[in-house]
């Protein structure tokens, strides 16, 4: 079977900075992958390449075997890639319900849309916020709203960039449960710094360091890996 997502030799440079460096990445259908790495490792840039927000300097991105390198964001989204960005991208002036409506409405009848909006709010547990303006919510709540927005589009692949940031402990636990539940039907890549959170959800973990893949293994092995500890503690990695 073809992998859901594949990158070959993916490179993204900004002037002299190489944010993503020759990354070969494979994600199977239905997989849940955690992507970790210290600040500036290139995780968000990798996501932006996958979603067409940046055009990669070199390399190839394949979604279900189809090359999507350099396509417009909206074309990639239509193929079934959804993303929750690191800095929440929501419609601040609109209500929670309207936000999710915009996502759910594409390609659907009004009736289906209404159902999906209700479902997405219930799934994430924000039904009581439906009428609130998103701009006035707390950061953690906005993260949940953005997650519901992404879910309502029903993408085959969901990218989450630090979804637990700004969340309370209870919210984080609920998020972990939601992610596991989403994974029953969809594949995910989750960027997260919080190792405890990673342990709650992950099987396989990919570690980025200075734009390149440092280690890729299952979660316990990665936690034990000396190189991973070193990059997180800011030590130099022996080549």
């Amino acid at each position, binding site marked *: 079977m073809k992998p859901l997502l594949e990158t070959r030799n993916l490179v993204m440079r900004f002037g002299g900075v190489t944010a993503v460096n020759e990354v070969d990445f494979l994600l199977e259908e239905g997989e849940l992958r955690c992507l970790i790495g210290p600040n500036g490792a290139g995780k968000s840039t990798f996501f932006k390449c996958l*979603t067409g*927000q940046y055009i990669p300097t070199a390399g190839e991105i394949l979604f279900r075997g189809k090359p999507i390198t350099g396509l*417009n*964001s*909206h074309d990639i*989204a*239509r193929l079934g890639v*959804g*993303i929750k*960005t690191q800095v929440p*991208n*929501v*419609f*601040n*002036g*609109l209500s929670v319900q*309207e936000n999710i*409506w*915009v*996502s759910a*409405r*594409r390609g659907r009848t009004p009736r289906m849309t209404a159902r999906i909006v209700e479902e997405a709010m219930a799934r994430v547990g924000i039904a009581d916020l439906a009428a609130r303006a998103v701009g006035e919510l707390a950061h953690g709540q906005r993260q949940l709203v953005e997650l519901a*927005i992404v879910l309502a*589009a029903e993408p085959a692949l969901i990218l989450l960039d630090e979804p637990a940031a700004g969340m309370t402990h209870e919210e984080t636990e609920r998020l972990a449960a939601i992610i596991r539940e989403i994974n029953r039907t969809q594949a995910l890549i989750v960027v997260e710094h919080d190792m405890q959170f990673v342990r709650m959800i992950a099987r396989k973990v990919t570690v980025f360091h200075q734009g390149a893949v440092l280690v890729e293994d299952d979660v316990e092995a990665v936690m034990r890996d000396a190189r991973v500890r070193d990059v997180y503690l800011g030590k130099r990695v022996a080549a």
Partner: protein
Amino acid sequence: MVPRFLLGTLATTAAGIAITILIPMVADAFEVMQYTLYVVLGIYTLSLAYIWGLGGILCFGQGAFFGLGGYTFAIAAINMNETTVPFLMAIFIAATVAAALGYFMFYGRLSDVYLGVVTLVFTLIIWKLINSTAGPEYMIGTARLGGFNGIPSVPPLNVPGDPSRMFDPVEVFYIAAFFLIATYLLLKFIQATRFGRLSVAVKENEVRASLLGYDVRMIKLLVFTIGGAIAGLGGALYAAYQSFIDPNAFSLEMSAKVLIWVMAGGVGTFVGPLLACFGLQALSIWISTVPWANSLLVLGGILCFVVLLLPKGLLPGLADLSTWLMARARRRTPPEVILPAPEGKRA
């Protein structure tokens, strides 16, 4: 039950119709003609209130489409001795030019600042061009462009299909008012459609909209084109009611004052900009009779006042003020109860 937003729209429409009927009853024909100017400028105002308020497109050269509508109508009407087709042509040409300029701006991914500059330069280039066509050699068919003198003797509107039956000034006022109210209702309708709601989403956050699979460029292009068509409609009525059009439609002032009206009235609303347009236009006409005052200076002053004191504009600002006053009135009694009891009486 009628939803609340519909109630507001119906009330506004009813008020508009009532005023339309009332004005010719209390004013003579000459005064009615002056009121027609307000109505025409109102349509022009709605064109910017729409693209800015619902599409987030800040256009510094909306006068270009108003002027193109006016010139198209004037030139075509002089050539055809009839006004129905020229009227439609005016809307069509303004929309087409807006679509072409919009395509270049949105598909070229121009940032908002450059978009403002490009639209402004665009209208000023047309202004320059038209100004330089004073010589008799500049003709389109039988119409002389006239340069800075403008085009006089534009045929007045006639009954569709019967060029010999022309509308009188009061009838032209009714026609203009009809188009103003129709435009308002059209925009309210668009606002409620899927497309209208999506354009607001694009205005709120382009990145999010495109990450959800929406082609932001296309949505903005459509909004901009509709705005151009409405401005063209206003321009056609402008040339028709006064039987005249000149290059000032393309001037900086024409594009700047509509920005001020929309900003003062409140970006995101329709009635606010309309009220600001009527009020501030009346003010500048009055100021022009005062020898020592300059209407542009006063408009600038009002703009500063609005930006500093009512940053959301007149209508949203007044709404905020009233909720604040109401909250204050409600809070008035309880604080006295909460006040600590005098020291001596404490247990």
